[in-house]
């Protein structure tokens, strides 16, 4: 028993030392690893001490208690009688009871309506982005781009000018190498540069990876792969629809502009997607 007591006291002693230690470390400026270890010893010492105490000193598990295999139901008739007795005046006045139920129900229905204030009406918001005819394609820093500023096999994320960082308008400009015919209508591309929505049509992550030797876009979230020369058609993974293409052209200064908004909703599907 002495050895048991010694161990228990050692555990509590280590805990006390660690508690003092962590206050000192904290006062000196703190350091996460040391704080963690000392707090761990402070708490763990108490844990170990208590367990040792329980095992070696306290009475063990040699007690027995009776239990009801099935809970006693002796009072059920009394409960039923009390309830019916109390419900009797209510049952006699049907109309009042019904009116009460009706007022509670309608109040409940009315109380649900403030939920509508939580957000805007979806309407057709999901069908449009911020791209409009004539808006320049700019980087996140607001820099517009010229075609010859993009080497073949380069990719850059762009937004409509004035909407940098806009989540639904994020678009990839890709300059395809010379031998590849750009996909989509002829007047939607400029000198081998094509534009596709960056929002994956599966679950909405940005399709950030581009592989130049096969011209494929890859989404890191669930591994959907889109083939750019085939109009960003999905070739692997759970995505079912191609990335929408943005019609682009050049303005008078030679900067890349959008010719219109996307002609279909960007991003993942939903019930009434047109």
């Amino acid at each position: 028993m002495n050895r048991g007591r010694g161990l228990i006291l050692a555990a509590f002693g280590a805990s006390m030392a660690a508690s003092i230690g962590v206050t000192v470390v904290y006062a000196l400026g703190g350091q996460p690893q040391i704080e963690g270890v000392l707090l761990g010893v402070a708490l763990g010492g108490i844990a170990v001490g208590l367990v040792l105490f329980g095992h070696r000193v306290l009475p063990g598990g040699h007690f027995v208690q009776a239990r009801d295999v099935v809970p006693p139901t002796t009072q059920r008739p009394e409960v039923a009688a009390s309830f019916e007795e109390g419900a009797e005046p209510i049952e006699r006045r049907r109309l009042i009871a019904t009116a009460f139920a009706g007022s509670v129900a309608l109040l409940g229905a009315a109380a649900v309506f403030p939920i509508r204030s939580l957000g805007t009406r979806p309407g057709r918001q999901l069908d449009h982005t911020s791209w409009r005819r004539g808006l320049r394609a700019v980087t996140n820093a607001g820099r517009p781009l010229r075609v010859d500023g993009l080497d073949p096999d380069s990719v850059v994320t762009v937004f409509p000018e004035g909407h940098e960082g806009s989540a639904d308008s994020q678009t990839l400009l890709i300059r395809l190498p010379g031998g590849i015919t750009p996909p989509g209508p002829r007047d939607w591309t400029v000198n081998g540069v094509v534009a596709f929505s960056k929002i994956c049509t599966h679950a909405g992550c940005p399709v950030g990876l581009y592989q130049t030797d096969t011209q494929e876009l890859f989404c890191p979230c669930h591994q959907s792969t889109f083939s750019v020369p085939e109009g960003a058609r999905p070739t692997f993974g759970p995505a079912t629809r191609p990335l929408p293409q943005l019609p682009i052209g050049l303005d008078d200064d030679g900067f890349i502009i959008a010719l219109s908004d996307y002609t279909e909703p960007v991003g993942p599907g939903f019930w009434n997607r047109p």
Partner: protein
Amino acid sequence: MISRLARWIDDRIGGSAFAESALSKVFPDHWSFMLGEIALYSFVVLVVTGVFLTFFFDPSVAETTYQGGYDPLRGETMSEAYRSVVELSFDVRAGLVMRQAHHWAAFTMIGSLVLHLLRVFFTGAFRRPREINWLVGVTLLILALANGFTGYSLPDDLLSGMGLRIMYSLVLSVPVIGTWVAFLLFGGEFPDQEIIPRLFVIHIMIVPAAIAVLIAVHLALIWHQKHTDYAGRDRRESNVVGPKLWPTYASFSLALFFAVFAVVVTMGGLVQVNPVWLYGPFRPSEVGPPSQPDWFVGWLEGALRIFPPWEIRAFGYEIPNPFYPGVLVPTVIFGGLYLWPFLEARFTGDRGPHHLLDRARDHPVRTAFGVTALSFVVLLQVAASNDLLAHGFDASVATITWIFRIVVPVVPPLLGWFTYRLMTALRASGAERFAEMPLRAVMRPAGDAEALASVGAEPAAVAGPTTDGAELTVYAAADGRWRWRYRDPADDIELDSNTSYVTEQLAAADARKAYPETPLVRNR
């Protein structure tokens, strides 16, 4: 001093009878019954560390400029939420330890909840009269998952922002009401400004309150119904054996609380988790590996990754691809969990109360189903790291994904069938331990027909062991109160009644209730 206080309270409220029954209450102390307690104390640690965090976290998406101690972000614009988390991690003493301990405690809570659920499932502890507690428990698991997800989404970093985008798309994919629910929940199109403050309210107020209430219900039911226990020579459906609450079980339970706290806070200092400063603030056009959510949502992520590109579009409406793995699969899994006690009672015809637990072999069909479901979820979990596996083994992501597409539907049922054979063989062989079972019994279990016939029915070897030589004695103790004792010389067991009685008759009545078939020998 304490006794004076206790007397003062008792004079005003009464309840000394309750106190006596509480102090002397018996708790079976098998180690597998403490898994739920790990979760319970993890929740307590979460609340304690969480309160600390709420003093520093700013649940606002208002733009600000970072001026704190992490160089690569200084001068960068970000939300107040993200700024407050990075500042807490770098510029507040003990802030990072608290934050990481909070995160690790969430892991230990959900991890031990899953182990606890598995223990309850495989031992049949959810059977009557504990179906209500099972429903409460499954709900607690769902709430814990929800709080875990909302919690790691609060810092508004790039990784959790991607997760929120995916969650938004999952909600969108729900037929008919999807767009409305998404717009109301998030306040509009993604990423509307409203979501972080709302997640904050859900995470610190609504869900923890619900968890606390349900934990109270869960514990109250266990208290009232008394805990189940494994069968043994001294165990009956009509009794419960173990240490008393005071002082032994309380001491162990308190020790477990300190141990949980110790483990998560040590990990909070030594092992880095969720380094949001590396991921950067959330920007909707940025993305990058790591692209997995926290592990407890990994099974959902894996389902989304390996599900083939199927979707339904008809009459101008569509149910898009993410709906099937992202909404249907979890509904089936949790629906199955909720319904299981009732399905099992229906199909086995066993609607009686059970206070003694099954061993896995006693109910091979249940065990097989459990193994199937568990392996399904685990395989989905592993599938979520398909890109990491490809990177590590220098293989193609497509190959790895295809392997999972085949393995996930095929392997779990096979494992389930194999488990069923193994369990029936184990039972039929009569071997006590797994290792003692002859191997050929697995291939051709002896007494197969008999084992099959008794599947699902009341297992033979659970309750009512022979009581040759066992006896009950009732005696008066030195303080004049009566106690009783159960003695089984064959197994060298001697158990005392947990409480004392005023009369000999009361003691004898309880003794007979606890051991209905054991002879009562009046002694002394």
